[in-house]
């Protein structure tokens, strides 16, 4: 039976305003109105409440597929949605939803954990940007203390579940590049078996991140220097964890294979057993394995289709067909077979061919393992081109 992942932003609102946020535009009313016009649903400009999605949940329940649901995968903080708890717990009771994941800034998560049905929760992603001082500088005063509360609470609840993953996202930028070690130390006593530190270089193409790019921008060489220093602490902490009977922390860099190659060539002390390597994954949008749901109910092949830059080019290349909406569909197949989704799959295929046939991908020795999204490369360029 095929698995379909629903990436669902319950809200684009957020209780923080981080200086490296690349989704801050989605808090702007005018931006949203313009986006909804592009998506063909300007009148549905209110974020969906629980009552609005009851029918859609029924559709999921009656479908023959297996679903995984990822809440807040891209923009916004879903834990602040008025009906977050109700929606989460309802999703947990749907038989063919086998796995629930949550991405959160962790600021209020600890308040909900006891009331959340966490039986199917296999993955929580929490964002931490270093030690207390740096984290608060980037995310706002007092946020570190609260995130820590959530982190400890998740650890207490999930420590005995071997298939549970705690992922800690660290958005690496000029301000916090030397604070990676502090994050490792923070995690040193957590008991969850699978703890992954995911280092994501800041993306400076939009939002607050674009506005603050001078403050945040960091050359790749400097990234490597800081990782080199922090990695010694990472190894030391894993030694201590082992001595205390805990599983090692794992580390992943949101790098392209080319960036990994430069990193590993410069640093000779990496252990593959604790480092997650990049691998080429099939585009889920192209292979009908995902649906992205906006807070307003638009159903899209992936989160990129909620970006005006992408929609503009997509419509120009393929013609304007509006995407389906939760209010107007009767089955999952209707979404997957909609003209918008069919066009999107064709477009992704065309984009892929185009990107791979032109500079710099055409001659890149890493193209066979490259995990960079083709849509991203087509619209914004190849992120590691200048390295």
């Amino acid at each position, binding site marked *: 039976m095929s698995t379909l992942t629903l990436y669902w932003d319950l809200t684009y609102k957020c209780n923080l305003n981080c200086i490296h946020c690349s989704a801050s535009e989605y808090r702007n009313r005018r931006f949203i109105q313009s986006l909804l016009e592009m998506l063909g649903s300007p009148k549905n400009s209110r974020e969906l409440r629980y009552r609005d999605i009851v029918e859609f949940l029924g559709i999921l329940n009656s479908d023959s597929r297996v679903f995984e649901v990822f809440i807040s995968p891209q923009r916004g903080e879903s834990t602040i949605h008025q009906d977050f708890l109700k929606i989460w717990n309802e999703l947990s009771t749907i038989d063919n939803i086998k796995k629930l994941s949550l991405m959160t800034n962790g600021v209020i998560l600890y308040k909900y954990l006891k009331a959340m049905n966490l039986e199917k929760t296999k993955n929580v992603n929490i964002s931490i940007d270093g030690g207390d001082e740096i984290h608060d500088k980037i995310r706002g005063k007092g946020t570190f203390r609260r995130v820590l509360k959530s982190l400890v609470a998740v650890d207490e609840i999930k420590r005995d579940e071997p298939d549970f993953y705690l992922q800690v996202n660290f958005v690496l930028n000029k301000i916090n590049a030397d604070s990676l070690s502090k994050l490792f130390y923070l995690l040193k006593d957590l008991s969850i078996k699978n703890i992954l530190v995911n280092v994501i270089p800041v993306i400076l193409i939009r939002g607050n991140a674009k506005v603050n790019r001078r403050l945040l921008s960091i050359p790749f060489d400097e990234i490597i220097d800081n990782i080199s220093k922090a990695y010694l602490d990472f190894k030391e902490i894993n030694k201590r964890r082992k001595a205390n009977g805990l599983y090692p922390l794992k580390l992943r860099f949101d790098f392209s*294979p*080319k960036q*990994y*190659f430069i990193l*590993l*060539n410069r640093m*000779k*002390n*990496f*252990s*593959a*057993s604790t*480092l997650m*390597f*990049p*691998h*080429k994954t099939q585009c889920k949008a192209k292979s009908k394995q995902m649906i992205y749901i906006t807070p307003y109910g638009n159903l899209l092949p992936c989160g990129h289709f909620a970006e005006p830059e992408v929609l503009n080019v997509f419509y120009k290349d393929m013609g304007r067909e509006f995407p389906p909406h939760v209010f107007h569909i009767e089955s999952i197949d209707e979404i997957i077979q909609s003209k918008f989704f069919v066009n999107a799959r064709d477009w992704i295929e065309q984009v892929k061919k185009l990107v791979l046939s032109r500079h710099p991908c055409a001659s890149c*020795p*890493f193209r*066979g*393992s490259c*995990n960079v999204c083709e849509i991203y490369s087509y619209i914004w360029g190849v992120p590691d081109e200048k390295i």
Partner: protein
Amino acid sequence: MRRFKLKFGWVLTEDGYLINLTRGDEIYKLNSVGKEILSLISENKSETEICKAMSRKYNVSLDVVMDDFKSFITKLVDLGAVEVVENEK
């Protein structure tokens, strides 16, 4: 005597994994001796230097070490992981 190097895109990790980053799905776990040999290759040691060092360290005759080395290096060359960069005249 020959010298070798890892081909472009291949990396050796501290815990003895040989990874082809141009493919991503090509990962080999070396034993400790294999890892040691590849570390010496990375230091640009020649075949003779490597074999002598291994012979001394493990107290095995040089002939035996050289035979094993040739067999090991042939496998790596066949895999496309290693290339010969210098042949002594």
